[in-house]
């Protein structure tokens, strides 16, 4: 089975959930926006499932771009689950990388990004949004 057999995943942003774009052909997962869905587990399940499926399919690299301005507690847990998946793949020799975009105007945003990065050893770039905004 080739990589392209994995369906792309597209979720539009809502008032309480971020936009999600998962592109198998490009090896790209992008999550942008605010995340305080009523049921974060249900919201992020397909995202985690997609990531697992992508990593299981073949050796292609995966780049994950996160630009999250607010996360409720259960969404934080889901993001950590996602990062655990990536870390595990990285530990297994996979080419995976993560970029966390933050608003440099917000004094606390950088600290929060660094908190997420703590304990992880995979490539985890923390990028000020002004310097390299997402398209």
């Amino acid at each position, binding site marked *: 089975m080739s990589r392209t057999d994995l369906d792309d995943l597209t979720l539009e942003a809502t008032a309480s959930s971020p936009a999600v774009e998962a592109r198998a052909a490009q090896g790209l997962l992008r999550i942008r926006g605010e995340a305080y869905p009523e049921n974060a587990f249900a919201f992020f399940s397909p995202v985690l499932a997609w990531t697992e499926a992508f990593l299981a399919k073949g050796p292609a690299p995966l780049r994950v771009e996160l630009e999250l301005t607010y996360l409720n507690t259960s969404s934080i847990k889901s993001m950590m689950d996602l990062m655990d998946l990536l870390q595990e793949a990285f530990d297994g020799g996979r080419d995976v990388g993560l970029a966390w975009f933050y608003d440099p105007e917000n004094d606390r945003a950088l600290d*929060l990004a660094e*908190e997420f990065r703590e304990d992880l050893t995979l490539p985890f770039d923390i990028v000020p949004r002004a310097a390299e905004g997402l398209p």
Partner: protein
Amino acid sequence: MNAVPLERDTFQDPEALSLKARLEALRETPAFRSHPLMEELEALARAHFRLLRRMAKITRISDGFQIQLKELNESLQVASRTDPLTGIPNRRAMLEHLEAELARSMRNGTPLSILMADVDRFKQINDSFGHEAGDRVLQALAQALGDSLRGYDFCARWGGEEFLVLLPDTDRAGALEVAEKLVQIAGGLELSAAGASVPVGLSVGAAQLGPGEALDALLQRADEAMYRAKARGGSQVAG
């Protein structure tokens, strides 16, 4: 088999440390070293430590987001009470102060006065010198009025070219005195646009709160006084 690893060296939870020490001691005991459950126990301990660590991390990050929300909320509170052009309190902030000061005045029987100050011929300033010049007039006035008032007076941008000044513990005579000063200060402002001097004048209506008077009535009297000052040519006080 390796020692039961804590998720991180700096992990300082005393219960976790004590549990780790007990497990390590048990493993060194001959009776337990090769016990079939030992491996499972160590796996369980690792999972437990990992969860503890994870919970601490989630809690820290979650607290961070909550502080961020709280700070955002505070800055919105300030923004919702501030006039963006002049940086002084806006009508909403003034209304809150008015209500509080009116209640205080009635409770304590102390006098209270207000000044309604309106920029003279503001439309002409905008038309002749441009809106940017008009904005600068408002900014300069806001600054000058604020500087000249006492610490417990309260000045806000009330409307387009209107400022409202709240003077606690001040009777009509005192209010007229302050009003005169404001008219002088406004007249003394030196602003220029496109090489020409911009004439700044202020008409001020003063009103002292009457016994049992409602806020609307007080505001209306100050407004009427201000229009009388304007009708007499502006750059003066009525009340």
